[in-house]
Every structure is written in C-alpha cells, then in structure tokens.
C-alpha cells in the first residue's frame, strides 16, 4: 500500500485516494512544432515510455482531495516516494542528478533548453 501526500493541498492518503497518471514530463510534439513532426515523434509521444527499475518520475492526481494533478518521484523497486512537486515544475536538483538512463538524458536536454 502506497502512502501519498499531495503537494498542492497537503492531503495524505493511500493509493486509493489518488489516481495514477503514468510517466511524467511527456510533451506532445504537435503542440510546439505541428508541421515537422514525424511518425517516430508521434510514436515516442504516444507509446514509448521510460520504464526504469529504480527512480521514476510520474504524474498523480489528488482524487479525493483538491483534484489537482501533480508530479512525483518514486522508486519502482522500494515503492518509496522521494519527492512530490508541482505539475509545471521539474524535480528537485538532487533527484535530477540521481536519475539514470533515459531519464538522465531527458533532464540533460530539458536543462539545456532552459538555459
């Protein structure tokens, strides 16, 4: 049983009080560049998923509290929630550093864009 705390309204509950929303930080390519998207971009958006054994970043919704979507960093082996953060935010810097594989590549790209 997972215990989750919503970063928006601070309500705490188990997994039945929240709704899982899958991988975080998925961006629809057609929103920024509708003319030049390829079939592969669209495939990556719709189907390709980060699926790490360990630290994962995902979306959750506070179903029985404020109803807002938020982000969470969770370990898929220990089930521990490492952090929760706003739906428009990137994870805390120390967790970005901890990320491995495809997540590490993704954050490197995002941080470069930001800079």
């Amino acid at each position, binding site marked *: 049983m997972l215990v989750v705390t919503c970063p928006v309204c601070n309500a705490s509950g188990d997994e039945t009080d929240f709704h899982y929303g899958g991988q975080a930080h998925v961006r629809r390519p057609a929103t920024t560049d509708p003319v030049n998207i390829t079939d592969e971009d669209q495939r990556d958006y719709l189907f390709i998923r980060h*699926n790490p054994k360990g630290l994962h970043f995902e979306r959750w919704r506070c179903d029985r509290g404020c109803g807002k979507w938020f982000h969470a960093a969770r370990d898929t082996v220990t089930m521990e929630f490492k952090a929760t953060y706003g739906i428009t935010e990137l994870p805390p810097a120390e967790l970005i550093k901890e990320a491995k594989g495809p997540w590490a590549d993704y954050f490197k790209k995002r941080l470069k864009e930001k800079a």
Partner: protein
Amino acid sequence: MKSKYSIFSLARNAKNYHKDWEKAWRSPAPKAEYDAVIVGGGGHGLATAYYLAKNHGLTNIAVVEKGWIGGGNTGRNTTIIRSNYLQDSSIAIYELARSLYEGLSQDLNYNMMFSPRGVLMLCQTEHEFRAFKRTAHANRLAGLDCRMVTPAEVKEIVPIINTDPNCRYPILGAYYQPRGGTGRHDAVAWGYARGADELGVDIIQNCEVTGILRDGGRVTGLSTTRGEIKTKKIGVVTAGNVSTIMDMAGVRMPIESLCLQALVSEPIKPVIDCVVMANTVHGYMSQSDKGELVIGGGTDPYNNYSQRGSFTALEHTVTALVETFPIISRLRMLRQWGGIVDMTGDRSPILSKTDIEGLYVNCGWGTGGFKAIPGSGFVFADTMANDRPHKIAEPFGLNRFAEGRLIDESVAAAVAH
C-alpha cells in the same frame, strides 16, 4: 541421450527409492562463443531455444537467466490457456500456441498436464455481452471452436455460480471455448528446458546480463556476471525486465512494467471443472488438481518491479469473486504472490527484429503470456533463424507503433487475459 520418461522408468526408479533419476538438464559453464544467445530463461525463452534447435538445427546456442529457470512469470501465472481473441493476427498466434499445447507432453516427453477443461468468459453487462458476441463471430470466421452460451447453460457447466438476475452484475450469458483450459506452468518451463538441453542447448542459470556489446549497428556479444559471451544473434525474452535490457542496447521500448497478483485458497474438494473469467468485475478462477482455487485479477495501476502488489488490488479481486461464487466467501487464502508484466499500449505482444543487426526482441505479453508460450517460441525461433519475421510474427513488429498499425486487444479482452 537421456532416458525417456515412461511408466516403466517410473517403476524402475521406484525400486531404488527414486535416488537414481538423472538430472533433467546440465548446468554448464558458459562457452566463449555461441551462434545465438537467448536472454531470459522463462517459458518463452526456453521454447525459443528448443525450436531453434529442433526446427532450425541451431544447437550451439545458450539461454542465460539471471535467476532460475521458470522463476519469473512462467511460475507465477494462473495457467489459463485459450485463443479466443478478437483480431485475426492474435487468433493466429494464440491458436498456434493452443494447438501446440495439445501435443506438447508427447513432443517433449514431459507431462505438462494440459487440461482442456473449457474456458468460460462471463458477460455481466449488456455491453460486454455484445462485445463477446462480436468476438464469437470473428472467432468462428477464423475457424475456432467457440460459442455463446445462455445463463442456464452457464449454471449447468458451473453449478456453484451465482445466476441471481437481481445481483449487481447479473450473468447474461457467457462466451465459451471448450478447447481452452489449464496446464502445469512449471512443467512447461522444465519440459522445454529438458528438451532443449537434450538437443545441445546450454542453459546457464544465475547469469545476469550486464551489457550488450556492439560493433556499430550490429551485436557482437553480451557481458554477464559470468564473463563475456560472444555471439552474433541475441534474442531478448525478459518480460517485465525487457526495458532494462533493451536500454543497454539503446533501443527504447513501448513498454511499462506493472505488478499482477494471483492467489490460491486452501485446498477443497472439486467444485469447479472449468476456468471462469469475469472480466467486468476483474476476477478469474479455476481449481488446481491439488484442490486449491487459483484466483487472478487485474494489475496494480502503477509501475512496479518489486514482485509485490498492493492489498487493494487483491481485495478488489476477491470481492468480485465472492459475489460471483458465494460459496467461497468463507474460504481462507493460502498463498499470494506477484509477477512483473510488460504492458504495451495496444495490449498485444512484440515479436520483432530491431534496428540493430542481430538483436531480436520477444516481449509485451503483458498479463497473458503463459497461454502463448509454444506459439511464441515457434515463430520467434523462425524469425531469429532466418533473420526475417515469421508470417505469424509479422504483424507484431516494433514498427507497428510508428505506422499506427495497432493490434487492439485492450478493449476486446477487457482486463483479464
């Protein structure tokens, strides 16, 4: 040459108090090089190795497994075998598997206890009734022996079922595949392992893959916890861990790993002699030869590698089954466990070549892989041996996700496979 299992070998060994049975397969050290290596010693991986050796004469091959063979999902499922899927491509592969199961014990000389006791899929809403009717028509067109049955027939087949028309999800009928059933899941892994071993395949347990070695766009070998192994062909058949392995080769997968749980009750006298699947309420049940009721349900919703699921999902499954079978309400549950299943977006498997030469992948069986083991191994072996997709495997390529050519079984099969 191994001695054959038979009533005579059983009698002969009984005389020596069963002390002299030879090992069913060897435990060799990995060689420096193989013609092909299968990563993952579950049912699908072992079946692939067996058919590579038997049908394609490739005997200098190995199966590497990080734990012990059949210790993953092959030994954790609820052993249901059926082939009544909606889409033609799915029917082709699942029916190939189901028909291979019929003669598998003889083929492998290993009793995997295939029991075609019939699979009954309940219709508990108007919507579900119509969806199954559509599947029934599709299946009959494909030549499957399946039919819709009325609530009265359901009661006849499964007397312990609750057919009260006033309950929350009344039984409006069912979709019946009499040739479906169950098998002994461990025996499938062991039988394929013994068969492959006899043909010269090295089965290497406790050998975890730590890297895939490449020379430009082609594979050259594997690094493992037991040293480097050179090979030009690698088949990745690692179910829930497939993303982890494919990440090593830089191939991104359309897969998420979830936990699916199952449980068994204390053993009781025979009460149900077929498999019942109640997809609307998320529960399915059959009875093992030991008398335990074998129960499965839906997955936990979130990514999970722990092989432990949540109590919420179990409670949901048991609640559903207690309404469907009121007599089980006081049964105690004996064991419960979880397996990590690899889910694709369209709930259909992936049997594919990749952009890297010599790298093949067989995964995405999600919650329904056990029933497909012989068919999956058969066509995947052919795909690897000839370096082109087998005709039945062709629709299941990785390219379908970019081409939008999905094989949608998520609605057709509801939750339970």
